[in-house]
């Protein structure tokens, strides 16, 4: 039965291949049908094989590499963690596929879109299910490529294409560090199997483990748009909205978190690394939240929000709670995918307008969408009893439960960020509902754009049940299923306290936002501080100034001076020198025979002189 595991990733791959080779001759409906069906079937298979996950089933297809001591099998590992993730990926993907089929109804290039979309799901599932780091890397780069191609889906606009390239390059830069970690792990352990590495982790030298963990963290940061590799995600919003929803909210950006979770037994051996992971997570969460607060583009708000929320997941990993990270990962997938799709529908209704200050009147235009927006936003804001509330609290609780200065301060920073989160989530709602002269569009939202959102809306609200803490009468289902003891059990008092603080924060945020945005406002005037935040703390300019511009300038300089000026031109120079020597020698052949005779005379003298020299010495 384990061999059926391969169906999970291969079904979307088959979908992609069918669309690639036969898509041109298919009617659109059939094409979208194939795409949706392959992902839905994959989700169904995941559900069907769910019981296998409990005993960490494995399945091997064939050996990929076999060189020297290196053995890389094409092997899948269906662990509880992977099962959760796989189910989330396939489920959310299936819904987004349905949404996309409607969203891109009129796009002529639908075949390419769904081919890449299915391919993406395949690659993502490879990441999720791979037991071997190299196979994981295949998925890792595969999602990177799909993300690249889908961000630049509307390739005629060079800005979009550039955004895709940026996403790929920034993540690739981080992948270099991940790759080095991979090489080093093989060097140290002689294997690339994650399970085997985790088993051997304890015997590795501690210093190496710290550096390894930091390298892995860098790789994860790249994929998950954490500082300092975060700048690609806001630009990635150039892609069609379903892409943003699936790749840049629900699945791919969480791959970094997932990687850290998978390798947690290794990483957890280094307290330093954990502290750094927590720091990176918290600062990114804070950074993202501040930026999201002032964005005018609806999708950019969500993008920075994603950066910020993924930061929480990193904080969770740092704090040592895999369950917390996974829990937030899942709930975030629900509400953020929901929000993106709502945003897409809103944009669709406004014929492509994305500026928050030109949108509005959502409840009147489409009440259903408004309620869905509200569901997503409250979950994002962490309003008590929604899914976001439980998952975020679990993370913060884990931080405070550590009871060290470092983790407590990180927890406090997390709380501040939670306040900011509530601020921008509610700002979004207020701006979209504002009663203002908004960009007009065509009629009500198509049904296909709405109903895939309903299950997500429901999950966003009640997703907390997945891992309801015992304090609230639950039994921490996810934690049990994952069976990853974190060693931390926050006291009930702490949990209650946190819930109370969160409630206060949300309420405060609601008051603040209500006062500010109750009456329709125009955007704030140009203030340097706002500009700074809108531009994402000007990281882009910094990178351009410090890295890309010098790289290009130096490269051109190198080409001009060294390469053209010397390396490739010295042979020609040498050739000219030889030619010139030849021209000089032509003077001797003057055409006058008496010169020739004299030359012979000199020849005789030369030989005789040499002879004399030789005879004397």
């Amino acid at each position: 039965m384990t061999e059926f595991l391969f169906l999970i990733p291969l079904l979307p791959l088959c979908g992609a291949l069918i669309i690639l080779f036969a898509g041109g001759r298919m009617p659109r409906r059939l094409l979208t049908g194939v795409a949706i069906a392959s992902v839905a079937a994959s989700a169904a298979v995941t559900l069907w094989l769910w019981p296998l996950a409990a005993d960490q089933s494995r399945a091997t297809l064939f050996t990929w590499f076999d060189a020297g001591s290196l053995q890389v099998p094409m092997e899948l590992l269906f662990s509880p963690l992977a099962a959760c993730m796989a189910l989330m990926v396939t489920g959310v993907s299936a819904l987004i596929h349905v949404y996309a089929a409607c969203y891109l109804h009129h796009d002529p290039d639908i075949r390419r879109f769904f081919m890449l979309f299915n391919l993406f799901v395949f690659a993502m599932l490879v990441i999720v299910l791979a037991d071997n780091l190299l196979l994981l890397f295949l998925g890792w780069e595969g999602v990177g490529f799909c993300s690249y191609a889908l961000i630049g889906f509307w390739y005629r606009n060079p800005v979009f294409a550039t955004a895709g390239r940026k996403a790929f390059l920034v993540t690739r830069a981080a992948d270099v560090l991940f790759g080095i970690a991979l090489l080093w792990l093989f060097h140290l352990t002689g294997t690339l199997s994650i399970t085997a590495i985790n088993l051997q982790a304890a015997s590795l030298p501690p210093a190496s483990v710290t550096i390894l963990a930091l390298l892995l963290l860098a790789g994860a940061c790249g994929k998950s748009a954490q500082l300092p590799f975060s700048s690609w995600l806001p630009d990635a919003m150039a892609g069609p909205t379903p892409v943003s929803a699936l790749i840049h909210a629900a699945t791919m950006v969480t791959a970094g978190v997932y990687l850290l979770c998978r390798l947690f037994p290794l990483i957890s051996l280094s307290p330093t690394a954990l502290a750094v992971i927590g720091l990176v997570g918290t600062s990114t969460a804070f950074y993202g939240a501040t930026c999201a607060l002032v964005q005018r583009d609806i999708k950019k708000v969500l993008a920075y929000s994603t950066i910020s929320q993924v930061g929480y997941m990193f904080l969770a990993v740092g704090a040592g709670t895999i369950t917390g990270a996974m829990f937030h990962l899942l709930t975030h997938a629900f509400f953020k995918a929901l929000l993106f799709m709502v945003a897409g529908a809103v944009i669709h209704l406004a014929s492509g307008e994305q500026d928050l200050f030109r949108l509005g009147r959502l409840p009147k235009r489409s009440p259903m969408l408004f309620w869905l927006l509200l569901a997503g936003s409250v979950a994002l804001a962490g309003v008590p009893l929604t899914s976001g509330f439980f998952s975020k609290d679990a993370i913060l609780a884990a931080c405070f439960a550590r009871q060290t200065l470092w983790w407590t301060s990180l927890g406090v920073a997390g709380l501040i960020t939670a306040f900011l989160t509530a601020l921008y989530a509610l700002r979004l709602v207020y701006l979209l509902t504002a009663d203002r002269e908004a960009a007009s569009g065509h009629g009500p939202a198509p049904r296909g754009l709405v109903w895939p959102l309903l299950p997500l809306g429901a999950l966003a609200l009640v997703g907390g049940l997945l891992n309801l803490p015992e304090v609230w009468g639950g039994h921490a289902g996810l934690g049990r299923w994952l069976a990853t003891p974190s060693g931390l059990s926050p006291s009930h008092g702490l949990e209650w306290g946190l819930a109370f603080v969160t409630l206060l924060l949300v309420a405060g945020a609601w008051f603040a936002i209500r006062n500010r945005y109750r009456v329709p406002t125009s955007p704030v005037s140009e203030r340097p501080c706002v500009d700074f935040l809108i531009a994402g703390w000007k990281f882009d300019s910094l990178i351009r100034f410090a890295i890309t511009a010098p790289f290009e300038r130096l490269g051109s300089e190198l080409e001009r001076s060294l390469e053209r000026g010397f390396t490739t031109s010295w042979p020609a120079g040498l050739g000219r020198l030889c030619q010139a020597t030849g021209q000089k020698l032509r003077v001797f052949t003057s055409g006058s025979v008496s010169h020739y005779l004299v030359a012979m005379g000199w020849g005789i003298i030369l030989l005789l002189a040499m002879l004399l020299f030789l005879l004397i010495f």
Partner: protein
Amino acid sequence: MIVPLGHVLILSGLLFVAGLLGVLLRRNLIMILIGVEVMLNAVGLTLVGASAYWRNPEGQLFALLLMAVAAAEVTVALALVVYLKRSRSTIDVNRFNGMQG
């Protein structure tokens, strides 16, 4: 032998160098040919002298052959002189420099 070989060699050497200088320094074709003849005569002198020194006839034999060869050479050369003089009306060797480089 009345004259020592060394004297013969010195004399013929001087003669040879004189002829050589004539060949190298003169521009007139006829004068160059005369220079060559002087050189060949120096050779003949050496041969005869050496033949006497070694007391064998080969040197003299060779001197005779040399005369014949010189005659043949001069014949060819003079034919060329006539031809050149006719076509270019000069026998200054440096005027014949149509090919160079």
